[in-house]
Structures are given as C-alpha cells and as structure tokens.
C-alpha cells in the first residue's frame, strides 16, 4: 500500500521537523513517497531523501508552485493520486489549505488533524477543541489525511531514498502570490520547540511582552501567546497557541498571565510539563498545570529569568 506524503517546503527549504513527524505517522500506513514542490524544491528533496522511512522522493519545481498556492498544488497532487491509497501531509496552514481541495477533487472526505493511526482506514482525531477524541473509519477508496505533528515523534535521519524529478501540471491560473510578511525570529520554531513560554492578557502591553521574551531566551524557548495577547497587539498572530492557532506539545510549557480558556488549552494541554504563573488562583490554567505559582507576573517573571540566566 502506497502513501503520498506532501512534504512541508517553505521558500525552497524543507521543514525537517514537521515533515519527519508526519513521516512517522505515514509509515504506519505503507510505503512512503514524499512530494517536495515549490518554485525551488530540489534542495528540500535532497533533505527529505535522508529521512528514514521515506523510500522515494518526487521533486516538482515550477514557478506556478511557488508559495504553494492551493489551486496548482492541489492539481499536481490529484494528477499523482492514482498510484496511492493514502495522501498525507502534516497539518500546517499550507496543508490545511491544499488537502481538502485535493480530497474534494477526488470525491473523498478529508480526515483533518489526525492524532492517532489505528490502521489503514481508522484514525483518531480531536474534536471540540480537543475535549473529545473521535475514532473514525473511512469507507473511501483513498484516504486524504492531515497529521497533527505534536502527537508523533520525528522519524530519524539515515534514509537514502531515490529522488525523481517530475513536472508540474497546467496552472489553473486562479490566483497569484503578492507578498509575504514573515515575522522574523531567531528563536526556535514554535511547533517544534522543546520549551515554550507564552504570555496572555495579563502581560498588559506590547512593551511588557519583552519580559516574556527575556524569559524565553533564558530557557532557549520559543515564544507563544494567547488570543487575547495577539488581539491586543502584544504579539504577532503566528505566535498564537490554541484551537485556531498552533498546537504545541513541548517538554515544558510556561503560561504567564494566561487564564486558560478552553480554546487556549486546546493548543497546549499535551505538553509534558505545564507551569502556570498567574495572580488569580481561580484561573482555569491551574487545573492543567503541573506546577502553579500564584504571583504577580511582573515580580515573578523577572526573578525567574534572573535565576535561570
């Protein structure tokens, strides 16, 4: 049984951690072929070939595939779909954009954000902001599946897959890329970081958010934020952790000034150790925290940062 895996490629570069985690899930389904596509994708293809568990890499380079616009990327995947029973991708914004389009073009359902692979037809996925886990069995001939990477370990390197170059298909010409506004960051990537420090409304201002960033730097951590912090302009939107932002499961998650709404917990409650710092002892975050500190964050966070530096 063959699996086509859409590798996560951004501006010609393979997102190794995200792709390798999806490989772990995909390898449970069958023989994995990875598709690297974009305006440039050859280097990403070489990198993907080294992931253990990938047996073949397809590289499709074409200007129309730049920035992975949904319409041409979906058309490419559909053109390859005949040989595969499973079409899989990590549940990133790119894949969430493309995969449902692929599924509908094939007249198949999509199975989003899979957190467990039971067998080739049966999958577990969280619903209701992670407050229930549903097991579904697909009756479709092909399964189009996005993988919640936070629940799978990354496949190790050591692979030696063959790399084959393929051509793009005709661009439907429905959309074009105009610009990216990339949030620059030297810190670890939020979804793959071992430690995440997040700030919420309690931080109070954009200036005070620097305190959260200083603690993150002391821990070598990525910075996250609650919706309230993003909506108030303290942090950029791509730092949002939660049901509608990113889902993370680091070894250590430090929530500062975050009450712990259902929608935020959906994005971080699978973290190994959760620390909460909040002055409200009734805050729901303390119900999921392994270690809670009831304190004024303006005193506790600088003190903690100093002790860790």
């Amino acid at each position, binding site marked *: 049984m063959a699996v086509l895996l859409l590798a996560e490629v951004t501006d010609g570069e393979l997102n190794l951690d995200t792709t390798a985690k999806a490989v772990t899930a995909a390898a449970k389904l069958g023989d994995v072929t990875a598709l690297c596509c974009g305006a440039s994708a050859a280097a990403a293809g070489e990198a993907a070939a080294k992931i253990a568990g990938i047996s073949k890499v397809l590289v499709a380079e074409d200007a129309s595939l730049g*920035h992975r*616009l*949904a319409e041409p990327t*979906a058309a490419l995947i559909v053109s390859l779909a005949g040989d595969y029973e499973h079409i899989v991708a990590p549940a*990133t*914004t790119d894949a*969430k*954009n*493309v*995969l*449902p*389009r*692929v*599924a*509908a*073009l094939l*007249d198949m*359902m*999509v*199975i*989003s954000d899979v957190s467990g692979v039971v067998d080739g037809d*049966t999958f577990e*996925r969280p*619903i*209701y*902001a*992670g*407050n*229930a*886990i549903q*097991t*579904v069995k*697909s*009756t*479709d001939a092909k399964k189009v599946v996005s993988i919640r990477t936070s629940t799978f370990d990354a496949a190790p390197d050591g692979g030696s897959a063959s790399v084959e170059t393929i051509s793009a298909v005709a661009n439907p010409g*429905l*959309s*074009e890329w*105009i610009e990216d506004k990339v*949030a620059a960051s030297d810190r670890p990537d939020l*979804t793959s970081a071992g430690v995440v420090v997040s700030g919420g409304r309690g931080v109070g201002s954009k200036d005070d958010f620097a305190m959260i960033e200083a603690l993150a730097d002391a*821990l070598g951590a990525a910075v996250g934020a609650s919706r309230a912090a993003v909506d108030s302009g303290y942090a950029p*939107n*791509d730092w949002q952790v939660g049901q*509608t932002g990113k889902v993370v499961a680091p070894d250590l998650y430090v929530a500062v000034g975050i009450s712990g709404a*259902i*929608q935020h917990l959906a994005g971080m*409650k699978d973290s*190994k*150790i959760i*620390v909460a710092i909040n002055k409200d*002892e009734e805050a729901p975050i*303390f119900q999921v925290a*392994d*270690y*809670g*500190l*009831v304190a004024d964050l303006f005193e506790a966070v600088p003190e*903690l940062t100093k*002790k860790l530096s």
Partner: protein
Amino acid sequence: MKVLVPVKRVIDYNVKVRVKADGSGVDLANVKMSMNPFDEIAVEQAIRLKEAGKAEEVIAVSIGVKQAQETLRTALAMGADRAILVIASEDVNTDIEPLAVAKILKAIVDEEQPGLVLAGKQAIDNDMNATGQMLSALLGWSQGTFASGLDIEGDHALITREVDGGLQTIKVKMPSIVTVDLRLNEPRYASLPNIMKAKKKPLDEKTAADYGVDVTPRLTVIGTAEPETRKAGEIVGSVDDLVAKLKEAGAL
C-alpha cells in the same frame, strides 16, 4: 454581486463539552447552541461589503437540523437579506460531513450565482477546516483561506492570509471562496429591533434531497472518548520552589 454566507449551528464556544459515557458521542442534549464564531465573522464581512456598496444581497445558508433556523435568524438580524435552510438531518447528533455540505453549497451556488462565498475557516465542533476548500474545488473557483484582510476590486480580490510564518497576501480571481479567520473583523451584535425585523425576512426551507445530494457519511464514527486527563499538579510557594521542582523533574 450576491454574497453567500454558510453558517453552522454549533455548541456554544464557552460550553465545556461532555463525552457520553457509552462513547457514542458528545452530549448535546440541553446544551446551549450558537452560531459558529468564525461564521459570525463571515456574516459581518458580508454585511460590511453590502454597506460599502460592493454587494447587493447577502444570503445566509445553513445545513443541518430544523433548529438551525435560529442560527439563520441571527444572521438575518445582523443584516443578511434572506436565508436558506437545508434540512439534512433529523437528529442533532448527526454532523453532516464537509464533503456533503460542500456539495449542497455547490448546488445552491449554481442556483443563486453569487460572486463570493464567505465562510468561516473551521467549525468549532468538528474542527475540520475543510468545507470552504472543498466547495472551491467542486466549483473550480479560486480560494482564499484564513483571511484576515479582504479587498475586492472588480474581477479580483486581494486577500491577506494568516499562515504559519506570518501573513501572506494573494490575489485571486473572482468569483471566489474566502474562509475567514478571527482577526478579519469584530462581529456586530444584533439589536432588538433588528431581531424583530429578522423574523419577517424570507427563509426558504429545503432538504438535501431537493439538491440531489447524498449526505451518507464517508467516515463512520466508531467511538468518542474523553481525552486523557492530566494528573493533579501542585501549587508552589515561590520562584525558588518552582525552579527546584523543575530541576527535580528534569525540565531544566
């Protein structure tokens, strides 16, 4: 141009859901239901387009049980002009899958010929994030997902999308399907007079069969379980205690 806005009746976002003891699903009996929060943003955006003179008519559509009528009345009270209810299920526990919803919406699009479909990026119950993309595929239209900015100029639209690394702007050909993200706008509240007026606005009732769409699920739900609960944590007294505990636990 007409704007079509699909809205979904879901469990209210503030409700802590309970999984039924027999694993058959989530308990929806006597639970507060509301319009999916992302759909409110889509309705708001459609009304703003009308207020800006870029849309002539806003049509809200909902698919599901008869009670989804209330959700449509909410959309009408916010400012939608008329509504279409497609009854596809007798039972509130039956969630119609995105593929079937997309097929029904396609039939409605074929009939109504809107220039734009504005949908929420995901429903907070099934968390699928798929219907808009599927509808776009079935129609062969462009798609602009996770939109936090939307600017329509003639035969194309500029869409700012919330993506993993930041923001991306794309230009799509109209007609298009746009799915909205949280930060596109702040939805308005319906005023009491508008709620009263909404009761008189037209609401067509249809069935899935009227559109010739089979709503049989492709995914059979085998079971629904509670997620693993975390073991109780402890409250520490000071920053020093916290650092000591984290060292003990091997986290530092």
